[in-house]
C-alpha cells in the first residue's frame, strides 16, 4: 500500500511539475506577458484577443517613466483607446531601462516573434531581415505619407516598400554655456577649430574645464564628437571609405579634446559626463534635443538660460562645410507582423494616430524632441529647439553619426578603442585599425 501511495504521489508530482514547465502564456497575468518586449509567439497569440472583436495591441514602450515624452505618449494612447473603444486597445508596457528593452526586443525577434508595436534606433536592415515587420506601403500610398517631412520615409523603406516609420529625429549640435564662455572672455562660440583650442585654453586659464567627454557605456557624447570631427575633416561623403585618412586625423583631435576634459572622463558614463555640464563644471557638451528637458529640470543655477547651441566649428583644410550637421533617426516605430489581418489593421491605425501632425507637435513642444512629421501650422517651439530647426534648415548637409553608419560590433568596440586612444595605448592609426577590424 505504501509503495502504491509513493508511486501515486510521484506520478502526481511529475505531472504537476511538467505541467508547470509547459504552461501557456494565457496562464500568466496579462500585465506580465511580453514584459521588456520579450514576448514568445505563443504568449502573444494566446493573449492577443481577450474578448469579442476588440483587438489588443501591446507596446513595450521606452517612452515611459521619467522620459520627457512619457506623459504625452500616455495621453495619446489614452485618447486612441477612447476613440476606438469598441475596436482597439493599446496597452503600454513600460520599459525604463533602454538596454534591457533592446536586448529583450532582439531576443524576442530572434525567437521568431515581434511585439505588436515597438521602437528601435538602428540596424533597420537586420530587423527587416527578420521578416517580422508589417508592410506599411499601401496605407502610406493612400495618403499617410503626407504626414512626413520630405524624404524621411526613405529611412524606413526597402525595395520601395515602407516597413518602419522614422519617428524621432536625432540631431546633435554642440551645446555651450555662454556664462562660462563669458568668464573666459568669449561672447560667441568659435567658428573654427583653431579658435576652439584658443577658447579651451582661455577656459582652462579661467579655471573652467572646457569639454564633457566620456568613454564609459557606449561613449555616447564622445562618439558624437568623433562623428562631428570626422565629418568636419572628411566632408559628408567620408563614410563611403572607412580607410579615409579623416578617421585617423579625427582620432588625433579626440586625443587633444581629452586633454581639456574632466579627470573622470575615461570610464565616465552619460550621467557623469552630462552631470558635469548640468553642474556648470564643464562649458561645452554635445547631445540632442531630448536633452533640453534635462537642461531645464536638472541644470544648476538656471543654467538652461545660459545654454546656446552651435554646429561644429569649421576644420581648417577639412572638406566639411560651415554649418554641417549630424542627424539620424533616433527612433523608428514598427509593427510586428502576426499574420492576423485584424491585428495589422489595428497596428496601422495606431501608427497613423501616433504620427498625426497635431499630436506630434504637442509631443515635440512638451518634450523638446524633434520628429520626422510635418509641423502642425505655426508650431510653438522651445528656444533651443527653434535654434536647432533654424540650423538644420540652414545646414549644407545633415549626415549620420558614426554609430549609425557602423556595424554593431564597431559601435561596441568604440568605447574601448577610444579609452585606449586617450590613455596612450593606441596611436590614432591603431584606434582606427581596431575599429575597422570589427567590420
Amino acid at each position: 500500500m505504501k509503495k502504491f501511495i509513493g508511486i501515486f504521489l510521484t506520478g502526481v508530482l511529475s505531472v504537476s511539475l511538467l505541467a508547470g514547465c509547459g504552461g501557456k502564456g494565457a496562464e500568466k497575468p496579462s500585465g506580465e506577458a511580453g514584459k521588456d518586449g520579450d514576448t514568445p509567439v505563443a504568449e502573444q497569440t494566446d493573449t492577443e484577443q481577450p474578448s469579442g472583436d476588440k483587438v489588443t495591441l501591446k507596446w513595450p514602450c521606452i517612452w515611459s517613466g521619467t522620459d520627457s515624452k512619457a506623459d504625452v505618449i500616455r495621453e495619446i494612447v489614452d485618447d486612441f483607446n477612447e476613440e476606438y473603444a469598441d475596436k482597439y486597445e493599446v496597452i503600454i508596457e513600460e520599459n525604463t531601462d533602454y538596454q534591457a528593452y533592446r536586448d529583450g526586443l532582439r531576443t524576442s525577434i530572434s525567437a521568431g516573434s515581434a511585439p505588436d508595436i515597438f521602437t528601435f534606433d538602428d540596424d533597420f536592415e537586420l530587423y527587416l531581415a527578420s521578416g517580422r515587420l508589417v508592410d506599411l506601403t499601401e496605407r502610406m500610398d493612400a495618403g499617410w505619407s503626407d504626414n512626413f517631412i520630405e524624404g524621411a520615409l526613405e529611412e524606413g523603406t526597402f525595395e520601395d516598400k515602407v516597413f518602419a516609420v522614422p519617428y524621432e529625429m536625432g540631431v546633435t549640435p554642440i551645446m555651450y554655456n555662454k556664462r562660462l564662455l563669458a568668464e573666459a572672455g568669449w561672447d560667441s562660440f568659435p567658428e573654427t577649430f583653431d579658435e576652439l583650442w584658443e577658447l579651451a585654453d582661455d577656459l582652462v586659464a579661467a579655471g573652467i574645464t572646457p569639454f564633457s567627454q566620456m568613454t564609459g557605456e557606449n561613449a555616447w557624447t564622445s562618439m558624437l564628437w568623433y562623428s562631428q570631427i570626422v565629418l568636419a575633416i572628411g566632408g559628408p561623403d567620408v563614410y563611403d571609405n572607412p580607410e579615409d585618412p579623416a578617421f585617423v586625423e579625427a582620432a588625433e583631435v579626440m586625443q587633444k579634446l581629452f586633454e581639456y576634459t574632466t579627470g573622470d572622463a575615461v570610464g565616465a558614463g552619460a550621467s557623469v559626463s552630462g552631470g558635469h555640464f548640468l553642474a556648470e563644471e564643464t562649458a561645452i557638451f554635445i547631445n540632442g534635443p531630448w536633452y533640453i528637458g534635462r537642461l531645464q529640470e536638472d541644470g544648476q543655477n538656471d543654467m538652461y538660460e545660459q545654454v546656446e547651441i552651435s554646429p561644429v566649428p569649421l576644420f581648417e583644410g577639412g572638406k566639411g562645410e560651415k554649418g554641417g550637421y549630424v542627424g539620424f533617426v533616433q527612433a523608428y516605430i514598427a509593427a510586428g507582423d502576426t499574420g492576423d489581418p485584424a491585428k495589422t489593421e489595428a497596428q496601422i491605425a495606431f501608427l497613423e494616430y501616433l504620427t498625426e501632425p497635431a499630436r506630434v507637435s504637442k509631443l515635440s513642444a512638451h518634450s523638446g524632441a524633434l520628429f520626422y512629421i510635418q509641423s502642425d501650422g505655426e508650431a510653438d517651439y522651445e528656444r533651443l529647439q527653434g535654434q536647432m530647426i533654424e540650423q538644420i534648415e540652414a545646414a549644407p548637409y545633415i549626415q549620420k553619426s558614426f554609430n549609425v553608419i557602423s556595424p554593431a560590433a564597431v559601435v561596441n568596440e568604440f568605447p574601448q578603442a577610444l579609452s585606449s586612444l586617450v590613455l596612450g595605448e593606441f596611436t590614432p592609426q591603431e584606434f582606427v585599425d581596431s575599429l575597422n577590424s570589427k567590420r
Partner: protein
Amino acid sequence: MKTTKQDKVGIALFLLPGVALFLAFFIFPVIYVAGVSLTEWTGFTKASFVGIDNYIKIFKDPVFTRSIINNIVWALVAGFIQVPIAALVAILLSFKPKGWKMFRTVYFFPQVISGIALATLWAAIFNAEYGLLNGILELVGLSGLTRNWLGTLESAFPSVLLYWVLYIGYFMVIIFADVQGISEEYYEAAEIDGASRFMQSLYITLPLAKGSIVTCMTLAMINGIRQFEQVYMLTNGGPGNRTSVMVLYLYKEMQAFSYGTSSAAAVVLIFVGSLIILGLNKTLGKETH
C-alpha cells in the same frame, strides 16, 4: 536491505521530474549553445554552418584571451584570497569577542544588497573627481596616489577585484556555522595541553572546517568565472578592454548580432569553469571529510 524491482521503479519515478528538468533546462541549452557555436547567426536570419570558425575567431581576438585570463585571475583571487579572508574572520568571530554579533551582521549585510546597487556605489567611490577614495587619500596627505581608479589601464582591474574581494559575508557565514559546530571537547583538550588560540585554530578549527572552506572556495571560484554585472556596471570592460571577462565578452558579441561567436565563448566558459572546479576538487576536495 535488498532493492526490489518495485523499489527501483519507485526510485526512477521519483528521479524522473528532476532528471527531466535537468535535461530540459541544463543539458538541452548546453547542447543548443554548442550547436549554435558552429554557425554564423545574427539572430534575425537563417543560421549557416561554419564549423569551428567561431572558435578560431574568438581565440584570435586578444580581448577574448584577456577575458579568460581575467576570469582565471578572478577565480583564483576568489578561491585563495577572498575565502581565506572569510575563514579568518569566521574563526576570529568564533572566539566571540565583544560585539561579535554586530560584526557578523556588518560583514553579512552587503549580501542582501543587489550587486548592481553595490557596483553603482563603488563607481561613485572610485570616481576621480568627487570619489570618496581620492577624498580620503587627499585628507591623509596621500594625494600623490589619487587617480581615476576605474579609468586607468593599470588600476582598473585591481580596483574592480579589490572591491569585490571585500564582500566576504556569504562565505564567512557558511564557515562560521561550520566552526560553531565543532565540539568544545577538542578545544578543552588542546587547552589542557597548553595550545594557544592560534594553534587551536590551526590544528583543530581549520582541519575540521575544511569541508565548508572547500565548498566556499568552489562557490567563490564559480562566481569568479561567471562575473558579469559588477564589471558591466563599473567599467563595461574598459578601459581598453582591461577589465573584460568572458560573460561580458559573449554578451557584447550577442549585442553585435554575432550569436555564433557568442555561443562559442559560452562553450569555452563552460569548459574553463569545469576545468577549474575539477582541478579544485581533485586537489582539495578528496581530502575533505
